């Protein structure tokens, strides 16, 4: 067996200082899942094709399967596990859960983080802007519609509005 030297980095993970040692060729995805046991970040291809492994690095969405763990040194990394706070779930997590935007839930963490990035930049995105922002994330269950609705609902609530899903989104049209 070849001798390997572990790399060692320090960074901010979900708002807390973290350090981790890992084989230097590992991607951020692998470091998060295998060395930090944060399995909320998923993988669908490990080739940068599906968006499933998206995390936020310094507030910007990044495909963690295409970024080396080494590159996270000194950066601010946020995963789905860091979205909820003492105050409860992030509004996006709440609306994704309550509207059925998470069916199998496997692509959900990636969508949540990319949506969070969107709402940080644009508090009132249009449906078209939401589609554009989420176009790098694949979901096979929902047809994306409940995801758009969840993002819109969360955006409205984050703006302080009392918002609910339209009736036809839940019961269909009359």
């Amino acid at each position, binding site marked *: 067996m070849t001798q390997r030297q572990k790399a060692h980095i320090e960074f901010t993970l979900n708002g807390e200082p973290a350090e981790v040692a890992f084989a230097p060729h590992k991607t951020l995805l692998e470091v998060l899942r295998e060395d930090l046991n944060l399995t909320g970040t*998923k993988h*669908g291809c490990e080739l940068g094709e599906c968006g499933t492994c998206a995390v936020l690095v310094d507030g910007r969405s990044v495909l963690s399967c295409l970024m080396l763990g080494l590159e996270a040194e000194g950066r601010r990394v946020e995963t789905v596990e860091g979205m909820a706070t003492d105050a409860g779930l992030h509004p996006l997590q*709440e609306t994704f859960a309550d509207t059925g935007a998470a069916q*199998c*839930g496997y692509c959900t963490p990636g969508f*949540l983080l990319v949506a969070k990035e969107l709402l940080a930049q644009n508090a009132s995105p249009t449906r078209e802007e*939401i589609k554009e922002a989420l176009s790098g994330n694949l979901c096979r269950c929902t047809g994306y519609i409940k995801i758009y609705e969840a993002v819109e609902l969360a955006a409205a609530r984050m703006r302080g509005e009392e918002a*609910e899903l339209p009736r036809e989104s839940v019961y269909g*049209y009359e």
Partner: protein
Amino acid sequence: MKTNGRNNGGVKSNEGEAKSNGGAEPGGRAARKGVDFKADDFRVVGKPFRKVDARSKCVGATKFADDISLPRMLYCKILRSHVPHALIKSVDTSKAEALPGVLACITGKDLPVPYGILPVSQDEHPLCLDKVRFIGDPVAAVAAIDEDVAFEAMNLIEVEYEPLATVASIEEAVEVSEPRIHDYGDGGNIHKNVHLEFGDMDEGFREADVVREDIFFYEGNTHLPMEQHAAVAHYDADEKLTLWSSTQTPHYVHRALAKTLRMPAAHIRVIATPNGGGFGGKSDPFNHEVVVSELSRRTRRPVKVTLTREEVFYCHRGRHPVLMKSRIGVKRDGSITALDFQSFLDGGAYGSYGVASTFYTGALQTVTYEVPRYRFRGLRAFTNKAPCGPKRGHGTPQPRFALEVQLDKVAEELGLDPAELRLKHLVKPNTVTANYLRVGSIGLRECIEKVVEGSDWKNKYRKLPEGRGFGLACSSYICGAGLPIYWNSMPHSGVQLRLDRQGGVCVQCGSTDIGQGSDSVLAYVVAEVLGIDPFDIRVVTADTDLTPVDLGSYSSRVTLMTGNAAIQAAERARELLSSAVAEKLNVPSENLSFAERRVFDVENPEVGVTFAEAVVLAESKYGTIGTVGSYVPPRSPGRFKGAGVGPSPAYSYSAAVAEVDVDIETGIVSVPRVWVAHDIGRSINPMLVMGQVEGSIYMGLGEALMEEMVYRENRNVVHKFPSLLEYKSPTTLEMCDVITYLVEDADPNGPFGAKEVGQGPLLPVMPAIANAVYDAVGVRVDEVPITPEKVLAALRAKRQGKDPRFGPRAVPEVEWPEPLKVLTPAEGGDGKEMPRVAVHS
């Protein structure tokens, strides 16, 4: 009313009325007697509760198979064939075994017992024994201390192949009988060859005013679940095996493990982890599940395998490519007099569900419009490609595409509106079709009316400018297969309910949540019957040690079958509680109502006990409170060989109108909007139903326009693009708007009247889009996916004055077996095969 997404977890938000009338009476018993309950009478059913596991999925806490990590776990890699068809001359694992960090290497000889999902197709080996049949077939496997070492070791395994000629298509399989891919089947490389005839076909076509013959092709495509298959096996010190796997069918995996590992099933526990998408792609027992189990047995350590995305493409079991020829006889009013349908399936390298798939391509043509006489001939070929199997809609999207496009052509030929044509000839409720399928409720009329009205069909169809078009199609799907995969007379679904003295309720069922919300359905149904909150209930599913058997998440069976089993278990618990509470309160038990976490006298609502007190009273009277429920589908009237595929306790119905824009310059078809109406029987949870409908439209859109499983045509039979990027699927930018209508025609066989929704709404999408393309630009693309080059080719043909069509022009000439003839019910048939004519000597 607007839904309250924020608070809908609580009873109070659930329109909180402290109802004390009979409306709180759960519908289970009565629903099975066919009483139509008003949705308003339910407290849980019909309400948009969030799923019981929704929040875990949104905080990253749900443990999928690859999220499992056990101490001292080893990693497995599987060496797969890089040649499509060859004899294995030798496999040398010595170099791999010598690599430090490798703990075990196995080959086909170590697991010689074959398996397969269907008893008639036990044609797979966990690792190929003497030959490989497609690129991706597993040959050898290693277990090592980490993934990198396992990968390195896998590449050190040396395999010597003796190449064989390949079979790459249906046509080749029909022509080339040697070498055979398998040494079983209906001769040469024909896996299955069937011929069924219901009624006097000659008479049927004689009655017709118009006879059309059309040929269609439906390209194969794959499920593409976001989660790759993964499994962890642990053979422990007590010589018991536990397998965690991303599977839709833990019960069948359990059986396959016992067989291939030659171990008592009682020593094996299979736990299906939450599936990160299934769509049928995780319904077979898989070689990697057996392989990690064997590696764990050898090493006595946990072993994990996670397939790469490329390997998922090789697992496949997706939509069969099907070539079809449909001959239809119709009268001037559009009524069908006879339908003669042929299908040719490219099965790929193994049997999988293929025999069932073959019959499914001929089963459900009769349950939407009246087809008085019907003939079906189906052939499944073995080819050296990734094995096909069940994908959402299993065997029905292909013939449905053919039939609905053909009806569009019929309507045009007869000068009829396609919607009117369909509406006039719908199958009547509570009838038996020519091929002996018993149709109960059918809400298709209302479905068609909804989409026609909602889309403004009458002002759009044939009235839009060049390049824009509207198309309509309908469909139907089973709510669970009427027969189990292996012959037995046991229940298809079992539920066990445990009530504890603190008032806790635990529902245990073998069903597997693949994202559709089946765990939640169990909680909703039990909560409705017991008058408690669905979030009070703990749901334990898909664990062969803890849960009674449910056959699995396939054939749209789960809500209907587990729902009915859960109602039965809950009603039995309710009876125990009722009798104990009645005694305590001195109230007749039939006067007791269960609602708002209380058991009370309907005539005097303040006289009552809490649900938890009711459990204590019952436990004091009867001892530990546990009940069971089970479900067996009704017997089907068909008695002929082949009658096992198609029967179902109920059929769902859908209608869709698609709007398309066709760019004449590029041939690109875009779909701005689809109107869809689905006859759900009764929504157990409308929000989840909506999600299934929207997801079905999405997947149908992908199949219609872009998704295809294609291979290089150079006899190497290599998959062209086993990757998520190159295998095109719709992103947010391609997805259409969906206008959904839910039609609730409660079915007496459904739990609270519910029917399926996971698969049915996908089926009308492809033909509706194809018909809309014709409406837009006047060319027929008689195959899917409808890619730009096909549209352009058809437009070119149109400009040149040729047949304005793209599609197959012929089907192979085949010697079909003698038909199995069955008189139709209308002809006085009894569902049995007619005696073959005796030859007098």
